[in-house]
């Protein structure tokens, strides 16, 4: 086999994709921050021409986001993606779109990935059309060629069909045809077979292998299914909560899994071999909330091989106690609950957790009871001290270690169990122990934009009222309205401007500090704007008919 070669085609360096969470309207009003989700968090990955790299992980692992970032569909917050020496971040919108000829994507749900209003020919041909192929007959020739390549023959049978007339496998073939028609070199396949029927999965996988062989493609294969990844990939990156936890050649990963998460995934695959015993030591719990990931190693709360330095914290204590209660009787639970009190405050992650409401000694006794049940839990080793505080105790956890990807044999693993020194450039670069970035400079108090918005907003909201005062006087003196249209326009415009300013203040005001009072100012200005708008427009309705001679004056009385 000529490839995989060693020539890199895509080079991902320190890539992070963060999303700001939009809190509810109330949260925004009082200025609390909803936080960010680190969908992809500092990933280094090099794709070599002609290889198949698998990104494997559960939902929320960032595997799909990483795949979309490769096409520039998810904007990189930090780091770079280089395709054949070009950094995607440097490209303008137009150039980036042109680049998508070379990097293409296949989606999980073929039914959703095709425009229901386009025929197969239009859908596949549109990839050519957006890249400037104007001639319909030229497109048709290429579409027929692509459809034949993906096995949709006789082609005439499919050209005029709509997606709803096709089966799942056929639709996925159309999606593949659309992806290969522009002659890409990299194909990102996001769970391409997981929505398909079992009987056709192998067929589509085989087709993808054939296409790779014929067209010299490089694949990024995103999946949650290690079994198909084992068959399909040359290298595999296991991802968890936005990071790569283990990466290496497929054979080595399967023959010798190192990271506890990899081992767990391997054990969890349901196997049709009836002789196999059901695994008893599955990781507990589920993928944690990405908006506030666990301290230390993100996998430690579920890990079977966790150590005292993995980053234990208050939420782990809560899980431990609640787990303990699932094994107690109702009376025991009621008793213990009254000693410990409410646990909800433990959800705020901290290394110093205070629990207990019925006295320090009782709480200590309770903790000992929990400990006696499972003395081997590594969390106990992660506790530095337990001090009496008020009517309870304060549990002080040891500062955890966030393991970097390090070389271990033929693979790289991010786990404290493999503490080998990093070797080589790649490992050094991927070191996560680098100093934290300096905090964002906080502007002194209020910035200029906030002040500007406030002033403009207030003027816009109030000026029409001032003008209206003049008009009213005129009306009272002369008994007629002459300049109604002026004030209406002024009122409506002013209202809109004021509302816009108020809204901007509400969402972006207050500079870096985002102090709550600017939200209050924003609310006032926006409300004034709405009032002015309604006032202006209602005047329009109420007054204007009276100005016309067409209608008898009953309207105005």
């Amino acid at each position, binding site marked *: 086999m000529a490839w995989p070669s060693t020539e890199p085609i895509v080079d991902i360096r320190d890539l992070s994709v963060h999303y700001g969470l939009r809190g509810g309207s109330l949260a925004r009003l009082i200025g609390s921050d909803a936080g960010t989700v680190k969908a992809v968090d500092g990933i280094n990955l090099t794709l070599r021409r002609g290889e198949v790299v698998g990104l494997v992980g559960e939902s929320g692992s960032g595997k799909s986001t990483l795949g979309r970032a490769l096409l520039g569909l998810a904007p990189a917050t930090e780091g770079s993606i280089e395709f054949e020496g070009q950094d995607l971040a440097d490209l303008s919108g137009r150039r980036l779109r042109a680049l998508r000829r070379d990097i293409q994507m296949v989606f999980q749900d073929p039914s959703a990935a095709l425009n229901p209003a386009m025929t197969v020919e239009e859908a596949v041909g549109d990839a050519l059309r957006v890249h400037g192929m104007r001639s319909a007959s030229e497109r048709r020739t290429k579409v027929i060629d692509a459809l034949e390549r993906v096995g949709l023959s006789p082609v005439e049978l499919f050209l005029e069909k709509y997606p709803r007339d096709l089966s799942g496998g056929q639709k996925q073939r159309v999606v593949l045809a659309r992806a290969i028609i522009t002659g890409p070199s990299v194909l990102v396949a996001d769970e391409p077979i997981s929505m398909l029927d079992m*009987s056709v999965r192998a067929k589509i996988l085989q087709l993808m292998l054939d296409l790779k062989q014929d067209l010299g493609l490089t694949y990024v294969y995103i999946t*949650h299914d290690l079994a198909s990844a084992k068959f399909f990939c040359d290298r595999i990156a296991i991802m968890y909560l936005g990071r790569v936890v283990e990466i290496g050649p497929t054979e080595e990963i399967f023959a010798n899994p190192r990271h506890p998460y990899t081992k767990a995934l391997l054990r969890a695959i349901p196997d049709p071999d009836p002789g196999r015993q059901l695994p008893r030591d599955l990781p507990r719990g589920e993928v944690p909330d990405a908006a506030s990931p666990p301290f230390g190693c993100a996998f430690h709360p579920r890990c079977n091989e966790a150590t005292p330095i993995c980053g234990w914290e208050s939420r782990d204590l809560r899980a431990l106690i609640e787990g303990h209660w699932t094994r107690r009787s109702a009376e025991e639970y009621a008793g213990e609950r009254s000693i410990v009190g409410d646990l909800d405050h433990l959800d705020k992650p901290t290394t110093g957790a205070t629990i207990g409401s019925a006295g320090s000694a009782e709480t200590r006794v309770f903790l000992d009871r929990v400990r006696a049940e499972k003395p081997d839990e590594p969390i106990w080793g992660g506790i530095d001290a337990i001090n009496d505080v008020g009517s309870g105790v304060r549990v002080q956890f040891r500062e955890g270690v966030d393991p970097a990807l390090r070389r271990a044999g033929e693979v790289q693993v991010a786990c404290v169990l493999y503490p080998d020194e990093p070797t080589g450039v790649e490992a050094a670069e991927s070191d996560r122990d680098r100093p934290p970035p300096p905090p964002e400079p906080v502007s002194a108090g209020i910035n200029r934009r906030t002040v500007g918005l406030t002033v403009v907003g207030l003027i816009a909201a109030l000026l029409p009222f001032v003008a209206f005062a003049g008009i009213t006087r005129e009306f009272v003196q002369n008994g007629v309205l002459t300049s109604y249209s002026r004030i209406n326009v002024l009122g409506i415009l002013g209202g809109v401007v004021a509302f816009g300013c108020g809204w901007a203040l509400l969402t972006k005001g207050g500079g870096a500090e985002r102090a709550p009072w600017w939200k209050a100012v924003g609310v006032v200005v926006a409300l004034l704007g709405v009032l002015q708008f309604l006032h202006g427009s209602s005047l329009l309705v109420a007054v204007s008919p009276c100005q016309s001679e067409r209608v008898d004056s009953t309207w105005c009385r």
Partner: protein
Amino acid sequence: MSIEMSNAMSLEMSREPVISARDVRVWYGTTRGAIRAVDGVSFDLAPGETLGLVGESGCGKSTLGRGLMGLLPKGAKRDGEVWFEGKDILSMRPKDSYRLRGSHLGMIFQEPLTRLNPLMRISDHFQESIKQHDPSLTKDEIKQRALDALRLMGIPPTRYRSYPHEFSGGMRQRLMIAMALVLKPSFVVADEPTTALDVLVEAQIVQILNDLRRNFNTSLLLITHNVGIVAEACDRVAVMYAGRIVEQGRVADVFENPQHPYTRELLRSTISLRTTGLNFIPGAPPDLVDPPDGCRFHPRCPEAMAVCATRNPVNIERPRGGRVECWLVGPEDEIPPGGKQRLKQEELTVADEA
């Protein structure tokens, strides 16, 4: 292991089945004609036994599950007999079968969130369903029962007053299972209970389902498309194709020594860790408005014989227990002369693909 197994087997022989379906049919009326989603299905389920129902999508698995529960949409018609606790539930009055559901028959769905009222606390959900079937219980007794069920599913009692959205996907599915089991029904249908879940959580749920018989002595009909789950969580398996159960028996027997070509091809096309080559079944399941004559699998079958295209296969005893319907297995004496010749099949193209 082997002792346990033979124990279970002898138990199965000696005990009356909890539920016993005989020649059940469920058809839907459409403008094109009736869809024969389930067309003559028979099986028994012993107490505490788990039966896995596998097959491709569109072969009638879910319809069968819903048909047993009486949860069919308008325009569907069912007949046959389903004997449950000495009564035929298909011929019951709607009111009686409603009373049976929940307390004696339970159901676990694929999407737990759509089955829970987002405005009701978990405690309210439990109270509602328990009260409906056992109005004599006090609030404390209800809580007691609910907490017991939750505890067995690994949900701590501190979460009893939470709302459904405060739970993660796997917890919600545990909740659904707890709610289905709190009344200790003797028969539960689980329709693809793990499909929407992550790999590790799926394995946790499979484990819970596997432990059901120990904790609740509940018989379970587990509908899934994943043969791996069947192998891990079921005692017996029924392979369904185009509205019929083509092969059923103990999981170990059927998977190690499949008699029906469909079972074999289904197992071969599954991608597992031991996969070394890719196999697939050509073509797609037939249109159930007008299924093929004879054996419904014959257009896709690699070993189809002349008789398969003309005569319905006979349901016979499998060599090692269980049942199968395939002319390759027999009975020899009913195959007309020349019937064993290889059938000339039309070539299946992508145009027929699933």
